[in-house]
């Protein structure tokens, strides 16, 4: 039986079913908190626990799916390229905004990790949590973090940003669509971008642009911060 569970087809099939269920449940309920990824992960965790299947057996198939994360990050170039005109026209505010966002995100996380007395591995796991998952996990791994914790923090942050976006816009009293879009993208990557698209076309485009740019800037900043962990 365990040989069959360790077949890669088991993990891949199980993941497809859980993901499909997650997408269905989110559509049915329409709630951000029923995020399809959260639902899919919760279902899989439940199945593994109930049937006492080791994560390692599931991950034999899972690793095949995981292999696509890197190439998927490469494809973000296509979405940046599609907004190249918008970027060229506003390159200075866009770069200034993304850089300020990344520095604030990483700086505040580093400071709070120190305040809470978290160890180096936990700090490295949380440090890149404002950027998109494939980039955040790669940075976390490179600097000795725990990838699963990074993914959890990235998801919580994304959902927070999505829910809080209208409140944040009022709190900081900034109406400029360019600033709002970049702000949402910088603090809550793709999950926030979904909300930015609802708010407006420019907001959505800017938020999408911030995902890739903040990812690159965070990677560069992580090089410098590696020594602080």
């Amino acid at each position, binding site marked *: 039986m365990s040989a069959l569970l360790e077949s890669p087809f088991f993990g891949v099939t199980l*993941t*497809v079913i859980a*993901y499909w269920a997650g997408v269905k449940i989110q559509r049915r309920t329409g709630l951000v908190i029923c995020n399809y*990824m959260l639902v899919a992960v919760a279902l899989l*965790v439940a199945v*593994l*626990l109930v049937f006492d299947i080791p994560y390692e057996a599931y991950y034999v198939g*899972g690793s095949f*799916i995981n292999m696509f*994360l*890197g190439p*998927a990050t*490469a*494809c973000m*170039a*296509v979405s940046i390229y*599609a907004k190249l005109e918008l970027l060229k026209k506003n390159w200075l*505010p866009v770069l*200034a*905004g993304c*850089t*300020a*966002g990344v520095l*604030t*995100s990483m700086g*505040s*996380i580093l400071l*709070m990790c120190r305040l*809470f007395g978290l160890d180096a591995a936990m700090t490295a796991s*949380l440090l890149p*949590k*404002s950027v998109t*998952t*494939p*980039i955040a*996990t*790669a940075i976390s791994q490179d600097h000795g973090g725990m*990838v699963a*914790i990074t*993914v*959890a*923090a990235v998801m*919580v*942050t994304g959902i*927070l940003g999505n829910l*809080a976006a209208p409140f*944040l816009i009022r*709190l*900081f009293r*900034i109406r*400029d669509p360019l*600033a709002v879009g*970049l702000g*949402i993208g*910088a*603090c809550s990557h*793709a999950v926030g971008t979904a909300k930015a698209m609802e708010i407006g076309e420019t907001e959505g485009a800017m938020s999408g642009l911030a995902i890739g740019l903040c*990812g690159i800037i965070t*990677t560069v900043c992580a*090089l410098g911060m590696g020594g602080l962990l």
Partner: protein
Amino acid sequence: MKILLQIGVVFGVYWVSQCIEAVLPFPFPASVISLMVLLVLLIAGVVKVDHVREKSDFLLGNLGFFFVPVSVGIINYAGIIWENAAAFLTICVVSTVLTYGATAGAVRLTRRLLEKRGGGAS
């Protein structure tokens, strides 16, 4: 055949990026290198969007799916997160608010400065 070629282009770019990652003297993830390599190739016109469109739509449209297996790994870390739940949530909430404010504020400031300079020149 079209899709197969697109897979070839995207995977090829990624493999080249892995080679670059291997020779770099500092830790820089291949995924971010591949993003920059593909962007440069698109801007230079070496790769056209049509060469990667369907493959990229497939990967980006189902991005969440590809994270699922690694996220399930949380099963092995539940204890650590539970122990640090308060810190974990505080850090997520505070940094999200600050990051939004800093980004939006910096964009507004930069645009105002540009407008002032533009206004002064004309």
